[in-house]
């Protein structure tokens, strides 16, 4: 409890707003790395996942790649990439690590979203004369969106947690007080940093949970209010 109080005191100290390692700066770095990594990852994984979901081809490959990528230890991968790309390309190496980490969840979110769409609905769309692109754009994508946002949510959380290790290769972020604090035995600072990472993860998770709910198309939502409206309308009709 004492350590916890110390950590809060460290967090609230005015010094936390000063210098190159001020908390707002570290938070900004953390979010920026997360955003860049998730965006790049989405640009690769989402179209690929949609294509797999729509065509039904390449699913086994995707599952194998996702499984393998999940098993790779991110810290080891980052160090390896820094060594391979050289010390001048540390940010690239770190971002690449986070990108690889985010791909499995996003890929799975994209293809399971499309696959989960009722095949009879897709069949009806095709029989009405929709082109393959229209089937994807008007039917599979909107109906698969909630699962994609779910994938985005877990990918983002994994990246937020993992960006903490960026400080190990001197890239800042909220991992900095943790990694700098361990050799100094400054546990107030270590715990303070950890609390911030946890709070950030919770806040982003909450936002994306709301986004996931908002992504469910009207008409598919089993919303009590909607069925109440329907009943009221039926009763008045």
């Amino acid at each position: 409890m004492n350590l916890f109080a110390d950590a809060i005191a460290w967090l609230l100290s005015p010094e936390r707003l000063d210098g190159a390692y001020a908390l707002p700066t570290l938070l900004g770095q953390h979010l920026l790395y997360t955003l860049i990594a998730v965006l790049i990852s989405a640009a690769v994984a989402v179209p690929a996942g949609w294509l797999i979901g729509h065509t039904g081809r390449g699913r086994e490959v995707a599952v194998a790649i996702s499984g393998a990528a999940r098993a790779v230890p991110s810290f080891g991968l980052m160090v390896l990439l820094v060594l391979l790309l050289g010390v001048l390309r540390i940010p690239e190496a770190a971002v690449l690590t986070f990108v690889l980490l985010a791909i499995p969840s996003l890929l799975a979110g994209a293809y399971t979203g499309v696959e989960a769409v009722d095949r009879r609905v897709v069949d009806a769309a095709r029989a009405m004369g929709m082109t393959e692109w229209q089937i994807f754009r008007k039917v599979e994508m909107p109906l698969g969106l909630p699962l994609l946002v779910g994938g985005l949510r877990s990918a983002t959380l994994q990246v937020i947690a993992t960006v903490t290790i960026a400080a190990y290769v001197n890239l800042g972020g909220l991992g900095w007080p943790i990694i700098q604090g361990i050799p100094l035995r400054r546990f107030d600072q270590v715990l303070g940093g950890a609390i911030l990472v946890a709070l950030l993860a919770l806040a982003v998770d909450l936002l994306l949970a709301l986004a996931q709910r908002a992504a469910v198309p009207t008409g598919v939502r089993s919303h009590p209010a909607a069925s109440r409206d329907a009943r009221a309308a039926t009763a008045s009709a």
Partner: protein
Amino acid sequence: MIEFRSVTKQFPDGTVAVEDFSLVLPSHRTTVFVGSSGCGKTTLLRMVNRMVEPTSGDVEIDGESVLDKDPVELRRGIGYVMQNSGLMPHFTVVHNIATVLRLIGRSKREAHERARSLLEVVGLEPDLADRYPSQLSGGQQQRVGVARGLAADPNILLMDEPFGAVDPIVRSELQQELIRLQTELDKTVVFVTHDIDEAFLLGDQVVILDKAARIVQVGSPSEIIENPADDFVAAFIGVDRGRRALRIKETARGRVLVDSEGRTQGSLVEDGV
């Protein structure tokens, strides 16, 4: 006129769904394919709008092979009604009905106006227009499915067991509604069912199919009932039992017809007596 010319369909797994099938489906008439599940009737239906491609043979509409047409264009010109309605769950009723009109390039306003007027044609209240399919009953969904099939005013309407999943009372209502619609609209209807009573009720031409879409008998309902081709047909349509095995019974008030269970089904009205 739709013509099947020696059509065969073998699926990649080796199943022969349709073997050497030839038949002419006259225009402005309802042709019903009837047979037990797995007889290839749905495959036949889906070859008309190229949802299934024949392995060999040809399907022609008014003398033109469907295989020479762009499948997407072809499908937009043919109404399609399926079991469980196949409505887009995230589209409102009016949006569902208007879909094909939007696909063929009508303005949103025009398409929605037409969709609203179709609600009345299929016997739905106008205030259902902005509901979602999940807020409708099974019978209402099926009516929306029919309205969607009719939206672009196609000459041909394909119906794949459209009333298979609704309860008997609603099914009977929908059948009567379809008979009424057909007298008004005069489409070339291809209807698939496993229910022989439905086939006789709706069909001008009834096609009884066995495995691999082998034609057992083709004819009007009267022709088939009066002269079943073989024992299979006789057993399938049940001429020797139930409601179709009627006998005359004399009563104090005149002659009535009773079925094989002895239940009275109706009275015998004798013309010119």
